[in-house]
């Protein structure tokens, strides 16, 4: 298996196991000791460097309002130490977010992420999402901002 294909395999498993299925403790099998969020506008951890426990907390808090969230990987490719993934996210809004009480409705979002590797470990990411589009969907559901 090529280096690029190995990284793509690791990333696919990481997204499925940790982010979609919520097996947060498995993060330790994928992440480097320090994880840097290089660019993720709207993410409370944007520009921060996290240790493993900090990363787990990020996943835990991010998943809490959307526990059935699922990332469908659309495109995946590797270039050097980077792996690009484009994805489509769906989730049911069952937990409160400040300003947006649980609605029980399905929310959708697309995005593109570059994950950076050192060896077989993920060291950080650069991400762009339609995050504000999510808030717009939530606003429609809750009546906030309409």
């Amino acid at each position: 298996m090529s280096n690029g294909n190995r990284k793509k395999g690791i990333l696919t498993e990481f997204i499925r196991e940790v982010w979609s299925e919520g097996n947060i403790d498995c993060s330790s099998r994928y992440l480097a000791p320090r994880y840097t969020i290089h660019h993720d506008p709207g993410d409370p951890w944007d520009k921060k460097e996290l240790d493993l426990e900090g990363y787990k907390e990020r996943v835990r808090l991010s998943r809490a309002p959307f526990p059935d969230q699922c990332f469908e990987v659309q495109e995946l490719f590797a270039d050097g130490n980077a792996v690009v993934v484009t994805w489509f996210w769906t989730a049911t809004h069952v937990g409160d977010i400040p300003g947006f009480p649980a609605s029980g409705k399905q929310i959708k979002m697309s995005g593109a992420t570059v994950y950076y590797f050192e060896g077989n470990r993920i060291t950080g990411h650069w991400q762009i999402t339609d995050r504000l589009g999510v808030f717009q969907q939530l606003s429609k559901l809750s009546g906030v901002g309409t």
Partner: protein
Amino acid sequence: MRPAEVAAEFVARINAHDVAGLSELMTDDHAFVDALDNRGVGRKAMRVGWQQYLALVPDYWIKVDTILQDGGNVALFGRAGGTYAGVIPEGQSGRWEVPAAWLAKVRDDRVAMWRVYADNLPMRRLMGVERK
């Protein structure tokens, strides 16, 4: 040309507002997909689409910071911006700028798909499609 070079040339023609040049770089079955998963298909249709979009945002620009390539897939990351030329809410300038990413699928030195990942809310608000 390497796929990354084709994608970079596509960006250069977008920034030059060279719609005829953009059309030349598209495959006949070229697909454009925006951040909301809306699709436009076909070189002729997308030539018209770009003409209409550049009329709407006459100073539209893309600045690419990073290009990554794997086979015929090219990912570009950077920023996009411009000034909305339509009727805008009172007190706003119409200018917008957002972080953005693009995915190009290159085939035979042509762009077969151009997919945009960006936070479009500033533009949608200016167009009155979304409220604050």
